[in-house]
């Protein structure tokens, strides 16, 4: 190997790459701008959720007689005790983060903290409460015999059986990200080929010289992308399901115990279709704009980066605490909806809003594609 030759080739490749301004912008400048933007928006949401959690932690409480635990919790900044009926139901629906049952037995307390082990925020609140009560217990510790004289004994109870709760938590965390990646990636190859590939191969001109409307051509291409996306997403999902069966340890539990209701499953299917249509229409318009499949793939990068950032960033969001503003942001709203449905949370108004926005974005991308397919300077640019 000759170093001189290697360096000559290296220099040429770098010069070539640097002169491709669009690729340079997308692969270097864009991520530097994009990621801080996306994560600052997500961080803002997480901060607002967290601040709400820390400012007003709604905790269900039941207890008997004069209750030190009740007074102690009421004194804690941010904790709002909720009493009354149907507290268990409120825990399941997310109205309260945890349910504390404090039984006074003479000079000791038996405290049971119930929490929703399918929600990260509820798990966090449980850990905080357990720590608080432990410190309270430590303060009352007497005579150096903690085991026998423990003032507070804390026990926990979960909404779901442990393996099921863990599974649901991991499932709801991973599903938006995985579905996003599957839907976006499965159409990339065909999308690059069906628009920019037609230009590069010079098949676009003979195709457009046929007596068919450009809308028909576009619709045919769009349908082929949807079918490809659907097939690819199904294959990806099948692979993941098989992995959870064959090697569940990889996902952090012994056996998968997800129970998605038939309605949630149907709605998840429809969300996947919307997601596939979203990426298909977006990639089709980018591909029609690009001169070549290579350029198309460069243009897809920001879209894929957005997809992955949103899929990853929203994985930590508790859908029960998200503000309505995020229901109007593309991809973010779909991610939150996927998360909700994976936890069997069905809110007709939120589903309608998300589907309407999804349909609007898809329509806009298709209109953009139709425009690009009619624009001489885009179709025949060199």
């Amino acid at each position, binding site marked *: 190997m000759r170093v001189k030759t290697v360096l000559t080739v290296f220099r040429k490749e770098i010069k070539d790459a640097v002169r491709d301004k669009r690729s340079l912008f997308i692969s270097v400048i864009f991520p530097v701008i994009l990621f801080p933007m996306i994560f600052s928006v997500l961080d803002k949401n997480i901060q607002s959720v967290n601040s709400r959690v820390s400012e007003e932690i709604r905790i269900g409480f039941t207890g008997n007689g004069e209750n030190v635990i009740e007074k102690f919790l009421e004194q804690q900044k941010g904790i709002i005790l909720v009493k009354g009926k149907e507290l268990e139901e409120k825990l399941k629906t997310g109205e309260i983060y945890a349910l504390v049952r404090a039984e006074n037995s003479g000079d000791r307390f038996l405290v049971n903290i119930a929490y929703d082990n399918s929600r990260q925020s509820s798990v966090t609140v449980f850990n905080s409460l357990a720590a608080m009560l432990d410190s309270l217990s430590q303060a009352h510790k007497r005579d150096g015999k903690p085991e026998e004289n423990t003032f507070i004994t804390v026990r926990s109870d979960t909404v779901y059986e442990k393996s099921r709760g863990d599974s649901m938590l991991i499932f709801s965390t991973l599903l938006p990200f995985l579905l996003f990646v599957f839907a976006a990636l499965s159409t990339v190859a065909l999308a690059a080929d069906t628009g920019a590939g037609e230009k590069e191969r*010079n*098949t676009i*001109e*003979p*195709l457009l*010289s046929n*007596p068919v409307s450009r809308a028909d051509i576009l619709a045919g291409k769009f349908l082929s992308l949807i079918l490809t996306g659907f097939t690819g997403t199904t294959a990806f999902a099948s692979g993941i399901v098989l992995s959870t069966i064959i090697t569940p340890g990889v996902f952090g539990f012994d056996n998968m115990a997800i129970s998605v209701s038939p309605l949630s499953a149907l709605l998840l299917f429809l969300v996947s279709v919307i997601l596939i249509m979203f990426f298909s229409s977006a990639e089709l318009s980018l591909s029609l704009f690009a001169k070549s499949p290579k350029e198309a793939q460069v243009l897809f990068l920001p879209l894929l980066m957005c997809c992955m950032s949103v899929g990853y960033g929203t994985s930590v969001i508790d859908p029960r605490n998200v503000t309505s503003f995020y229901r109007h942001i593309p991809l973010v709203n779909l991610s939150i909806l996927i998360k909700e449905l994976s936890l069997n949370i069905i809110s007709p108004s939120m589903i309608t809003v998300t589907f309407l926005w999804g349909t609007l974005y898809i329509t806009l991308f298709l209109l953009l594609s139709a425009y690009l397919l009619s624009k001489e300077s885009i179709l*025949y640019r060199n």
Partner: protein
Amino acid sequence: MIRIENLTKHYRGAEVPAVDNISLHIRKGEAAALLGENGAGKTTAIRILSTLLKPDSGDCLINSFSILKDPENVRKNTGILLGGETGLYARLTAGENIEYFGRLHGIDIKTIKERTAMFSRILDMDKFLDRRCATFSKGMKQKTAIARSLIHDPPVIILDEPTSGLDLSVSRKVREFILFLKNSGKSVLFSSHNMGEVLKTADRIIIMHSGKIIDSGKPSELEKKYSMEMEDIFHFLTGGRNEG
């Protein structure tokens, strides 16, 4: 029939128009050749006639259909072979490429099969009709592209440099095919760089330079008018410059 009236096309950023106020009329059963150097405006004119580009001004009637007002009917009545790459789908066979365009024209499969068999016979395509186009030679691609362009049996045929890059035997086959089309009553307009091909095939020669038609007529009429051979006439009219 092709009737071009005052057609002009100016690309954005270009100093001069690619096509500058051209007018011509090609009758039924006539083969006319557009002759010009690279950059003379032949391909732009052909793309406008194919409805792929919109003119800045002027119009063109293909079998009485306006390219501006009725482009879909223009496409139905025109068989177009564009220059350069043949634009075939490499992963489809020659037959599938032809069938795809036939279907886009709304032709039933039986007719597509019959016409494909006819083209295959005339253009010697039998050996590669069922092969994928990815490995085709230039000649095989060109024959497939011609058959694909004419599968709907259009009355008007426009061919952009149909023999460019072909070997002698395939070029001859294509020339014979153009004559066959002309004798079948089609109006044929083709562009070429090749004077020999033009003289053997065209009833009329249209010489283009810098976007303009600088003269046109039967080869014999032009030779008589300028008292030169066609090649010298061409060099005389275009200033002998090669803009390619």
